[in-house]
């Protein structure tokens, strides 16, 4: 293939890629909806610093040794106190975490706000005509 043609196609595709990226970056700005306030967004950092994602998923994304935690706060029989209890004691697989009170509050605030964004269980989806899915 002619080198010039290759360069042109490469540039056109890259332009589309960059435009799509910018569109995604600007979304919170355009919709003005930072859904995590400082406390919650700090909580995300606590989540990362303690590496919860090696075992847990949010929206099915993460490691697989433990369960998905997207909706653990709103699950019947679970909730904030349950999570705090588990965090402090750990279980057979999960280590006990001795977080500072502030960090613990931030982590919980983060989990509460994630829970509010939607449902992650596959049961909450219904099929659309072309194999797509939609949250019920």
């Amino acid at each position, binding site marked *: *293939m002619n*080198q010039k043609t*290759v360069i042109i*196609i*490469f540039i056109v*595709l890259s332009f*589309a*890629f960059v435009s*799509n*990226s910018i569109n*995604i*970056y600007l*979304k*919170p*700005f355009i919709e003005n*909806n*930072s*859904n*995590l*306030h*400082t406390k*919650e*967004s700090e909580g*995300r*950092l606590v989540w*990362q*610093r*303690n*590496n919860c*994602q*090696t*075992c847990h*998923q*949010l*929206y*099915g*994304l*993460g490691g*697989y*040794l*433990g*369960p*998905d935690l997207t909706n653990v706060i709103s699950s019947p029989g679970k909730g904030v106190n349950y999570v705090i209890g588990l965090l402090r004691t750990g279980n*057979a*697989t*999960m*280590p006990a975490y001795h977080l500072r009170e502030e960090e613990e509050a931030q982590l919980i605030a983060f989990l509460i706000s*994630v829970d509010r*964004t*939607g449902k*992650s*269980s*596959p*049961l909450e*989806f219904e*099929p659309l005509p072309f*194999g*797509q*899915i939609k*949250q019920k």
Partner: protein
Amino acid sequence: MKNQVGKLFLLIALGMLILCLIFGLLAAFNYIFPGIWKNSLSFTKLRPLHVSSALFWILSGSIGTIYCTLGANNEKGASRRLSVLHLLFWITGIVGMFYAYLTNQFGGREYWEFNPIFAFPIAFAWLLFLIQFIRMVKPIAQWPVYIWMWLTGIIFFFFTFIENYLWLFPYFRSNFITDTTIQWKVNGAMVGSWNQLIYGIAFYIMERISGDTKPARSKKAFLMYFLGLFNLMFNWGHHIYTLPTDTYVRDLGYAVSMTEWILLANIIYNWRRSLKQIQKNYTFFSYRFLMAADIWIFISLIQALLMSVPILNLYTHGTHVTVAHAMGTTIGINSMILFAVFVFFLDNSCYTIVGIFRKWMNILYWLTQICLFVFWITLNVIGIKKGILQLHHPEISFYNMMTDMQLLFKIFTYTGSLLMISMISIAVMIGFKYLNCKINKLGKLNENFIIVSNNSKSFKST
């Protein structure tokens, strides 16, 4: 000197592979002995150690290959100082990363969990690599497709690696959905970019084995390259079908993923010719590894196409089917192509694969393929079982589900240990030969490369 640096990158790659395999097995023990080494070498350390070593095996191997193949192509182009600096920053990054993991300094995102401070040397090393690469390929008039693939891989890896750290800015991390969308945009495109490096290497070895320089310059090769690039850029939406992000992101991911049926059709269309090639080249060990990679491309592509249909993805998402896919592709495709090029370098420069070495390679080759297949099937069964239970028996607790699958986890871990033994043996055998292989002999390869290049009218140095 450039080749000495290339050779060092190749040796680092083999070291990373050996560590990756050991950490992978240790991590897997957590599935059959919950909480093992919880207070020392915990799963929180082992999984990142395993996955990062895997990525650095693939990346270091690709860098080393590119240095060894292009390094001598243009003696003046590649700067000696730059390549040494590149190597030093790369080693600093790797050492920093391991130090961070072993001392519990986390903070990064999945696959890059180390303290973000150590991302600096890695990013800087990569930037130096980009500059060096451009210097090396600039004098080449008509680039064959593999040079385009390498350039694409290097540019997009750099872009996605930087993008991977946007969460450091509160603007990005304060919107969970956008932040997670970007995270998976990064992961998708990053995998696509190292695949460009690896598939470029496969193209290059095929050219060298067959001595035919036309395929890497054909229209079809470029069309397939653009299809790969298009997917790298836009198919990542298939990772986040359940995330409540914009509908267009998911629909675009789905639609673009489906264009890969063209790749599958192309493989099936070429089946007969591939079989003939296999018969002709089977005695070349490096070809045999390429053949294994081809079969894994076929298997993984079918799996990926099915997983990319949202309604089927609902069953596989968040399960070990994803792990099967990740390891199936990184071992079956990426590692096999890297083995192919490592063996190719040996075979063609300083050590012909004969005698007892050949016999052992043959045994280990087949052991690896068989173990990998059982390993892959087991992970898929675990994943599909979880998918079905989640959807049809949500009353079963996570604990019971995991206990119920103990036997499968045992099969996974035990075949994993065999896989580890066979792949480490291959790595050690190749590594020792490399250590004994004179550097100027590796350089000889480059002379051959130029001979082939000069035979082709379209690939002249100006």
